[in-house]
């Protein structure tokens, strides 16, 4: 970030920032504020007992654990995919690269139905796993698979550019010092990638907690076992319990906001570090 001191000569600050803030307020902030106002209809103890009832707690557990595992698996395989796409040459690479974006574009309901059809006990893969006693659809594993699908592009697309820009010299130096390939990876490459990987993981994780469309088809929706938090919001809505629904929504909103804020601060600190180097 060079030349930041003399930025005043560029025009359009008031206009662009003003528009940005106005737009964000109208589209994002005011609507989200509605959740707060609606929740305010509840007394504190009502709010607390709603968001900490046994089923809701169980659903946080399901949502957070499956999102965490999905995020973790995506971090591992997302890194692998990014690595392969950036560093190696093989036929059909362009095609594979495009395939990564597909989960962004496919309607989540279609993804859910398709994944359920494949992993159900009579599906293509489910029927192979059934004799082994592995149940994928209608279990937490199924939810995790749906979330892996949803979150994969986030990891690949955050890691890819960093891997691309990584200097050959650092690795070169490690090799000169006699480090083995795997050791170079652990000691040199991975620390460099860690912030991007963490960001990708966190995004996939945050997206996973809120995902609804694809998960309801594959989860089986068993209370206390495979019931996710967004489904509970829907359930409350369908019983005309708006205040209860918005109370849970509020908890999810705050968690999402905090997670994103942490990511952005992390990113910002990292940028500062590299700039000051």
């Amino acid at each position, binding site marked *: 970030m060079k030349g930041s001191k003399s930025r005043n*000569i560029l*025009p359009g600050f008031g206009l662009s920032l003003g528009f940005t803030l106005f737009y964000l307020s109208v589209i*994002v902030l005011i609507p989200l504020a509605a959740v707060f106002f609606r929740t305010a209809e509840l007394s504190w103890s009502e709010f607390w007992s709603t968001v900490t009832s046994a089923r809701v707690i169980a659903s946080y557990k399901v949502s957070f654990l499956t999102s965490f595992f999905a995020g973790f698996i995506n971090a591992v395989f997302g890194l692998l995919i990014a690595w392969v796409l950036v560093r190696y040459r093989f036929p059909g690479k362009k095609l594979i690269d495009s395939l990564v974006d597909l989960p962004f574009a496919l309607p989540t309901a279609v993804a859910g139905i398709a994944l359920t059809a*494949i992993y159900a006990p009579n599906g293509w893969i489910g029927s192979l796993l059934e004799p082994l006693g592995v149940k994928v659809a209608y279990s937490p594993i199924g939810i995790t698979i749906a979330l892996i699908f949803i979150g994969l592009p986030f990891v690949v*697309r955050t890691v890819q550019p960093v891997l691309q820009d990584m200097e050959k010299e650092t690795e070169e130096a490690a090799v000169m010092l006699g480090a083995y390939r795997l050791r170079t990876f652990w000691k040199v490459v991975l620390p460099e990638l860690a912030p991007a990987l963490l960001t990708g993981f966190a995004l996939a994780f945050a997206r996973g907690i809120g995902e609804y469309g694809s998960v309801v088809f594959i989860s089986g929706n068993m209370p206390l076992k495979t019931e996710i938090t*967004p489904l509970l919001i829907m359930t409350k*809505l369908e019983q005309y319990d708006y205040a209860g629904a918005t109370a849970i929504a509020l908890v999810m909103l705050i968690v999402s906001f905090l997670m994103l804020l942490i990511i952005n601060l992390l990113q910002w600190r990292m940028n500062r570090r590299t700039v000051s180097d």
Partner: protein
Amino acid sequence: MAGAITVHTSEETSKRPRHITESRPVQWLLIGLALLFLGFIVLLPLVSVFVEAFKKGIGVYFDSITEPDALSALRLTLIVALIAVPVNTIFGIAAAWAISKFKFRGKNILITLIDLPFAVSPVISGLIYVLLFGAQGFFGPWLDERGIQIIFAVPGMVLATVFVTVPFVARELIPLMQAQGVQEEEAAASLGAKGWQIFWKVTLPNIKWGLLYGVILCNARAMGEFGAVSVVSGHIRGETNTLPLHIEILYNEYQFSASFAVASLLVMLAVVTLIAKSIVEWKSGQQKRAHQTD
């Protein structure tokens, strides 16, 4: 976050000296693993959509995608995307300009707010507009007196889609414009160029490929959004059903082939946009190279 920045898988990075890359067998092992994972998680659902779509034959396939309800859903999907994408593009450019070219306090919070729709559950994204504009909502009675219908009509669906796709263009442009810095713009400004001139002549050419990629992703998401739109649509057949909702309806009517046929339509839209994206990357890569040899 770095955002889904445009990636140039140019030949250069793939060609590395042998001592700092893996041996060929290891490479193939890793490639194999990556492909296997992608195959199970991404490709297989894609294939199953097409297999199911053509299960009852090509006739059923074409009947289901040319049926009036499917066409009206397609039309609505296009209308929603045609409004949501340009609006978010303008926002994305403005936000990226403010964030990348100037210093101000609270920038991190602003970026976090832009990111927020990524992480908000689609269920909540729809719910908030019901809370605002529903008959029992904050503005509901006021709107009702004036006979204005927002939710369960096109405006509500546009709003929900806009909300969900807010971050795409902005997140694409911010890291790109941050990396490019401000020297070129400042040079133009010191030569006496006016604000819009600087933007059109200096900034836009620099960011156009990134911008296009952001627009493409934004569009893909706008067309495919299900959860949020489902909450505000009202599901009136032939009137407020977008393609993803129409798919759900067909599926619930046990017309599995028809539902997957319409789904395959969306997949094809996605594939077309992804191919467009590849062309964008290829062109921008080409231009970069041309630039470097200049």
